[in-house]
């Protein structure tokens, strides 16, 4: 195999990996603060994809322009979900929370099936087949735009947590819930905000990824698993780790498709996950706990 084939695969994996990373950020934010594993992760992302699809069909809106809208819509969904449903199980053991979110996930997939049917549907933008070359490195426009959009959204999110007072308040909740309550923070509202922000990441990631892949309801569980793999590799709760994990998985998928066959790519990711759990169970960038 020559160098450029390899370089092309790595570049394409890296660009897609950034979008995966954005999606995994959504999972990491929610787990890091609320300590709940969002089993409806991929489902919320696929809702974002379908929303962008409708916007494209009805208004001819490019999926990238749907990103803020999808993020806003899913923010509302996540906010209400946390406030009305998930907050009621926060005192229950982990497996009940898992079951609740898994059941919500199944509800979302079933509802999407009823509305959109099981067939794969995609958008057709006029730059879909355009690309530019650097040497023999060929970069597709859709992949590059998707990666840029993902980086912008992720940077906005990281800046929000670092610089705004609400972001700091949320981080305070994550560090010490009781302490946050003592100093007068409205924890249940901040939790709802956090779930909303996590879901907004997914809405954005969904709209972005529609540029690259076709959408159908059964895509959702796969995205959920992918995000789990990414955040464990990167370190559960570490925001930067989610991005790094996303890139790693994107590249490893591309390598698997190149060296073996495309259908083996998730086996590669899971193999990587098992390796990380074996050697560094807290994840690459996670803090060692326990």
């Amino acid at each position, binding site marked *: 195999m020559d160098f450029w084939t390899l370089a092309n695969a790595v570049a394409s994996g890296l660009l897609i990996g950034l979008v995966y990373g954005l999606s995994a950020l959504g999972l990491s934010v929610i*787990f890091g603060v609320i300590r709940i594993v969002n089993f409806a992760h991929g489902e919320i992302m696929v809702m974002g994809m379908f929303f962008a699809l409708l916007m494209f069909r009805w208004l001819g809106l490019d999926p990238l322009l749907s990103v803020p809208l999808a993020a806003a819509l899913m923010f509302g969904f996540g906010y209400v979900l946390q406030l009305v449903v998930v907050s009621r199980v926060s005192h229950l053991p982990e*497996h009940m929370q898992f079951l609740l979110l898994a059941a919500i996930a199944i509800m979302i997939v079933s509802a999407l099936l009823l509305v959109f049917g099981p067939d794969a549907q995609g958008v057709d933008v006029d730059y879909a087949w355009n690309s530019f070359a650097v040497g023999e490195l060929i970069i597709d426009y859709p992949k590059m735009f998707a990666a840029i959009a993902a980086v912008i959204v992720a940077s906005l999110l990281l800046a929000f947590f670092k610089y705004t007072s609400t972001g700091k308040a949320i981080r305070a909740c994550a560090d010490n819930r009781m302490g946050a309550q003592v100093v007068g923070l409205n924890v249940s509202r901040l939790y709802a905000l956090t779930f909303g922000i996590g879901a907004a990441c997914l809405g954005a990631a969904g709209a972005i990824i529609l540029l690259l892949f076709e959408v159908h309801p059964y895509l959702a569980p796969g995205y959920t698993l992918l995000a789990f793999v990414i955040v464990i590799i990167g370190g559960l709760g570490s925001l930067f780790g989610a991005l790094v994990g996303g890139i790693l998985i994107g590249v490893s998928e591309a390598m698997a498709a190149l060296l073996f066959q495309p259908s*083996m790519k998730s086996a590669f990711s*899971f193999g990587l996950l098992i390796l990380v759990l074996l050697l560094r169970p807290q994840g690459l960038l996670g803090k060692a706990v326990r």
Partner: protein
Amino acid sequence: MSPLGRYFHPLSPAGLWLGAAFLAVLLLLPVWGGSYVMTVATTVFYLALIGQSWNLMLGFAGLLSIGHALFVGIGAYTAAYLFAAVGLPPIVGVLPAIALAVLMGVLIGYLGFRFAIGGVYFALLTIAFAEFVRIIVDHVSWLGATEGFFLKVSSADRHGIDLVNLRGAPEMYYYLIMALALGALVLCRFLLRSRLGYYWQAIRDDAEAAEALGVNVLRYKMYAVIISSGMAGVAGVFYAFYQNSLFPEIVFNIERSIEATLGSIVGGVGTLFGPIFGTFILTPLGEIVTEAIDLLKHWGVIDPQIKLDGLKLLIWSFIVVLIVLFKPKGLWPWVCSRLRLTRPEAEG
């Protein structure tokens, strides 16, 4: 009190009579039930067996598995392959099937517990392994890959009783899976009240305290995984010879793993009768929803042309959400206290 009396002691007289009546109805089911009822009842007991196995890990020892389809699938593929390739009858093949399922359990358990990976991480590890194996089997041609693995079955096989080769009439499968599910119930009852069971419960409630008192946490967690995965492996062997076809996308699907948890959670995690009770509610409920939709279409309330692929699951998962929100301890403890099925001092 006689040993048998002690065994049934937790049940109140009302509970005993109701249980006996229920058992009698189930034993006589083939007499009055049609083939449809038999199929549903067989599924119920099959899921109850897996639920019992899953409940042993979470309810007794506090280990959340969301990859139970993996152990079932390994059992199924092992016995089916050995039967098809070298003619090993399943009554013998169940042993290597259990061995491989347990081996997988030990591998996951070792990886997980070595670093005291708890809770969510362990759960995600079980999913990861289940998915990993699913994709691998997808690509193994001698296991049929995505095309599926089939066991030869002739129409002559559908009569009589051949427990050695697991070939026979639907009634045989029904009584077999009923015996296995009830056997698992008795085993769990025995384990829960044994030294091992008390160690598990101590670990479940507070692993650090248990360790401080000298319980070898790693070892007893491993025992839970070993027994649970072995039970699931047995269920897999039954599945293989009942269905006669195995597809990785079906057998190892994450939905199977979620299905394995549902009955127990709805019935009540950590209770003995929860898994079996939960599946007795959920599986018929799913069938009723399907029937109701068909009936509404028949009456013209719903346009028969409309595809309702997701509707059944939508209603079904909505009911699960309601149970989690309003009866988080499961339905069995609630029903028990309502109908006074157990003595007040004993727990179900």
